């Protein structure tokens, strides 16, 4: 539930966000894109500002099982929903199997895109565990990696998909 207060002409709201299984209350302009709240108010490293236009995927988070672009999602629209960022999958010590697949395949260069690549693949395979290689490629076609680690990234995703199917 949001409590709204007027302050110096701007509308600020105290919103409750559930991120990676933890609750946070944040005091922000409800129109603020979710990305800014995650990376600045909560200090998360996963979601990244790439374009701010919904074009590249760097800011991807999973909300209600869907990969969404947090740069173009007002924070107020996801208050109360379960939000997962790349941090929420696994840790260095205990990586999620998909993260592990990326490490095994050495499928990252600068890693700026990794958040969007991994979360987009995760959300898709969660909902479509039997997806074919072609369908996975299609699902990834809106995500950009300018280091062009594409071949290894697709190999990592396929490796994980195989594990999911098995």
């Amino acid at each position: 539930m949001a409590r709204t207060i007027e302050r110096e002409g701007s509308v600020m709201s105290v919103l409750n966000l559930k991120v990676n299984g933890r609750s946070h209350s944040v005091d922000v302009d409800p129109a603020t894109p979710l990305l800014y709240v995650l990376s600045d108010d909560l200090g998360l490293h996963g979601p990244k500002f790439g374009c701010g236009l919904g074009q590249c995927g760097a800011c991807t988070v999973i909300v209600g099982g869907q990969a969404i672009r947090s740069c173009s999602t007002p924070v107020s629209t996801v208050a109360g929903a379960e939000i997962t960022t790349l941090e929420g999958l696994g840790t260095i010590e205990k990586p999620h199997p998909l993260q592990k697949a990326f490490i095994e395949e050495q499928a990252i260069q600068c890693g700026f895109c990794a958040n969007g690549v991994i979360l987009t693949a995760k959300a898709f395979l969660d909902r479509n565990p039997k997806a074919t290689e072609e369908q996975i490629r299609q699902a990834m076609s809106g995500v950009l990696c300018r280091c062009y680690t594409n071949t290894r990234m697709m190999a990592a995703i396929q490796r994980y998909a195989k594990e999911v199917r098995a």
Partner: protein
Amino acid sequence: MNRLNTRKGWTPEALAALEKARVSRRDFIKGSGALLVGFSMAGLAGQWLGSPRSAAAQSLAGAGSNQLDSWIAIAADGNVTAYAGKCELGQGIFTAQTQLIAEELTVPFDRVKLFVCDTALTPDQGTTSGAQSHPTNFNQGNLALACATARETLLERASARLGVPGDQLVVSDGVISAKADPSKKVSYGELVGGKPFAIRVNPGAKRKPASEWTVLGKPARRVELPALATASFEHVQNVRVPGMLHGQVVRPPAVGATVVSVDENSVHGLPGVVKVVVKKNFVGVVAEKPWQALQAANKLKVTWTPGVGLPSHGTFYEHLRNQKPTRDTLVVDSKDVEEKLGSSAKVVKATYHYPYQMHGSVGSSCAVADVQAGKATVWSPTQAVYPLKSTLAMVLGMPPENVRVIFRMGSGCYGINGADTVSYDAALLSQAVGKPVRVQLTRKDEMAWENYGFPFVFDQRAGVDADGNIVAWSHESWFASLGSRPGTTTPGNVVTGLLVGFEPAEFKARTPAPDPTEFDNRLSAAPPYVTGCVNGKCEGLGTVASQRVLTHEVRSLFWTGPLRAPSRLQNTFANESFMDEVAAAAQQDPVAFRLRHLRDPRLMEVVKSAAKAANWAARPSPRPGIRRTGVAAGRGVSCVLYGGDNGYVAMIAEVEVNQATGGVAVKRLVLASDCGPISNPDGLRNQMEGAALQGVSRTLLEEVTWDNQKVTSIDWKTYPPLFLGPDVPKIETVLINQPNEQAMGAGETAISVVAAAIANAIFDATGARVRQVPFTPERVKAALSARA
């Protein structure tokens, strides 16, 4: 509010120490358990470090340091801390450098802690660019030489301590023992732990021979990768310092527009706004939160003069070719080219065009600056911490010794993206408010004002004799440039520097070109097939003796600067496409025709290896029996010695051309590379794969556009690149290891050959020649209709 503390990173205690601004190297080392003494930046900028292999390398190398303690410290527990000035940009050099240190010092990989690119901690190694990190730090100089000196010194001291001759000692895991009596031993920690070496790097120190390597030369996993995959890595975009504010800049609406007035009232009362900052034509806003800063920057009313006006994009290449004044350079001129062309049995001519392209990092550039009380600390993704320190000092008007630049990896840059300019932005805004300020550019500000890759026009002519030998080659090109890396003195080489009043490097017209005094092929302008004879010395790789390579540089409309394989990529597109046209005119197999005109064994070897791996069937192009409709398949070859001395590469591309739509699908790329001794085979493959695919994107899709006032390529819709997903070719790499040769670069070789290999494959498939990048469906269709 519940704050997450996620700043784990891969060297936690050290990163924490580093993040405390203005920590001294001495304090920092104390905190990290390593040792520091005698750090000196007063390295002799001289030859003793092992002279770089080319003039290009020299300007990028920095002064280095002649003090061993500047590079290597050994703690009491025997752990090794090393300092280097070549930064990790996603290319894997951090891991390769760690392998090198572990190898030379014979300690396990995980007992080495490496710090890179911090002007308070690491030696000045200039700029991490030009595919020069491998040659600089892995040959007989700099980091490698420091490691070799440390090992020799430790062995000498152990020999004295144990009373055993040096050649009777073995080293294992940082412990030196007598071969004959392993109980006679002493550890590195016991020898120097807690104390400085206090000696100079020894120019004669011997590297471990490659035949003895157990860490270097073997596939090593990237150190940062687990942190990157789990979001515990700290990119510069994630740096947060206490009390930090957020800034946004307001760039001019048109090229050349200047500020008339700024109406600060237009943002008065907007939430969080702290200050509007105007300095000459630099305009920015500082606010408490990033979203507030962005809103305010969008609302701020600035009146600008009209721009200078831009020539039409549609006729740009005519403009480029005819622009005056020019700066002319002859790479080689045998003075008999016209005569030889005149007497040739056949003359082949072709003109090629290459557009402005951008780095287009996925993440827009970002920096955090803390400028207070006459001192500045800047966290920057720059490739050049020391040069940036010096130009930041100019921009801020303070002595360089008061500026510290700390490198933090940003989004992959592939050359000079917005990293340096945003560092100025953050520093200027921080100086204006006296508090730390973070700036991350908008997508548009990144794309509209970055330093693009050079556009080129080429005229090529070759004469062929009756036996099908090339007897003369004339290469003439026109390209545009403005600004570049700021170096140590020229902040005006990037947009923010200009906006606050610094000029870009002066354009020095020169015509006609003076005669060359040596064969300097650092831009790979001369094709590999010429003899490169200048003043009696023939340093080219091929057999064609009648040769002229003439270039004309003009002033660019837009900022330009190094973009992965700068100029070499464009030159190789024109040279290797043209070589194919000549082979076709002589009705010869493109691979055999190349080999016939080469005499450099290493370049010939990569061509042969790629052809073999791709099952190349020898025959002339285009393929026989072409049908003029439907999907046509073909293959093409291309090769180069990158920068004249910095990495051999050859590529075979296989493509399918849809002759109805003009669409080109790249199906397979086979690459062969020889960059001397391989440091990390898997890292090398990763670089080659990425470069190859980035090359496909640049070849098929990328071109900067503009209208009569401004750049119109401002996001991924108006500058569409290759995304993840369907269109990825199979990429195969053949690595040729040369353990006894010099280490060369590998980050930029593969991308250089892509455009020509694809163009040649399209020709092989269809008989149509595409001579303008990018190979859009329209251009391919036009070439198809132009077929005889």
